[in-house]
């Protein structure tokens, strides 16, 4: 799996949110997107999975440009921005509804995903009764439950306690070692430094590739 970003820019009205980004993401690595809030990370991630079309440039997902088509890249699990589910349903039921679309996993797989994010004990609680951290965990479980080849997580550790952060980080490293492509964004350096192999630094829409975050 390979994602190529070629001269990609995104402009809203007259402001460039991402400007002339060039990079390549490959399987078997964890990429960390680091930058302040509003530096363009989420917009960049949305362009990767074709939720947004670049104003200029192109994103090739295994050589395919999904812009101007009705299709989306396959086998991708995402958590972008805040998670959103049906408030009156339990966490488990919410995941089950989503799992029914592709119908490739069963209840045990859903429970496994909930276990990875430390949410198995609260699986029958209604989503509207979840705390911020629990909602975030459910969002991550949703992204990983179907065992996708590419995992994209935008600020995944918001509100999550350290024990669960460690557990999820270890899971992502294991998946990386199995050959998956993982992209994680955060405005907290330490979270990224613990697991990422390469870094992209976002500063007011300008994207630069870094091998180490300490120099920033």
């Amino acid at each position, binding site marked *: 799996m390979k994602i190529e970003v070629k001269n990609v820019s995104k402009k809203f009205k007259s402001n460039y949110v991402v400007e002339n980004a060039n990079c390549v993401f490959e399987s078997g690595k964890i990429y960390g997107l680091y930058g302040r809030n509003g530096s363009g990370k989420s917009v960049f991630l949305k362009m990767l999975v074709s939720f947004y079309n670049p104003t200029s440039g192109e994103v090739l997902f295994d050589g395919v440009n999904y812009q101007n088509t009705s299709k*989306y890249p396959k086998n991708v699990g995402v958590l972008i921005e805040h998670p*959103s589910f049906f*408030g009156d349903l339990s966490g488990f039921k919410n995941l089950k*509804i989503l799992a029914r679309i592709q119908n490739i996993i069963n209840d045990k797989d859903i429970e496994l995903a909930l276990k990875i994010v430390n949410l198995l004990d609260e699986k029958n609680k209604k989503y509207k009764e979840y705390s911020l951290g629990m909602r975030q965990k459910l969002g991550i479980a949703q992204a990983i439950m179907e065992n996708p080849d590419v995992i994209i997580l935008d600020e995944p550790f918001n509100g999550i306690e350290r024990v669960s952060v460690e557990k999820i980080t270890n899971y992502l490293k294991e998946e990386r070692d199995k050959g998956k492509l993982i992209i994680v964004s955060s405005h907290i350096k330490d979270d990224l430094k613990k697991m990422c192999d390469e870094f992209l630094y976002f500063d007011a829409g300008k994207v630069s590739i870094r091998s180490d975050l300490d120099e920033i």
Partner: protein
Amino acid sequence: MKFKNIAYKEHFNNKNVIIVIIIIIMGVAISAFSPKTMFNFWNNFDNVLTNSYSNAFLFLATIINIRFYLNNNSYKYNLVLRYGDYREYAKKNMRDLINITVYVYISYLIINVAFSLVFSYLNFSISNPLIYFLHLIFFLIRQFLFLIAIQTIYYLILESYSNSFSIFILLVIILHFFVSSYFNIKIGNVYLIFSAYLQTGMYSSILEEIIYSMIYLIIFLCLCLIIGKFLLRKKGEIR
């Protein structure tokens, strides 16, 4: 890949359902509480069906239902990648919306029957039952088709240009008044056609009704297909 429908009922909570029911009751009540020259169940029932304001409320209930049904963008992220194709996602939504409209329309009819019954003083007399029920059935079919068509077009526009909500509300209401008056004229015509049929024994009037309904269906289908093809050509952005 085998797709299964997401249970659309999950999109609605008790509050949503109550709001829709109240709108329908208000629509029916406008006609039911209006001054009458005669108290008859069928007369009341017919008055509600053909009352422009009652119909406007029915359309409003349908439109509000779509708003309740449509997912916010963060939830949409969970869905579209799993479908892999925006058209598949849109088709699934349209199927669900048709199911929802069936429930809304049945609720509307039940509430209409209840109000008509209350103000009928148990007068159920009808002069030409065969003619009346035939025209009623065709009328209901056409009205339901119109409801589905408006809803589908509205959904497609909403998916494509989400900020056009208020403009489209106005469009629907204006359009509705035109169509509603057309329905009324048609009912009068149908009575005349069926009276002629009873006198002459010719079946052409029934065929005429069927043809009218078929034309409606074909026009609505074509309209929805054209708009669907145009709007869902590419997926656009999920903002």
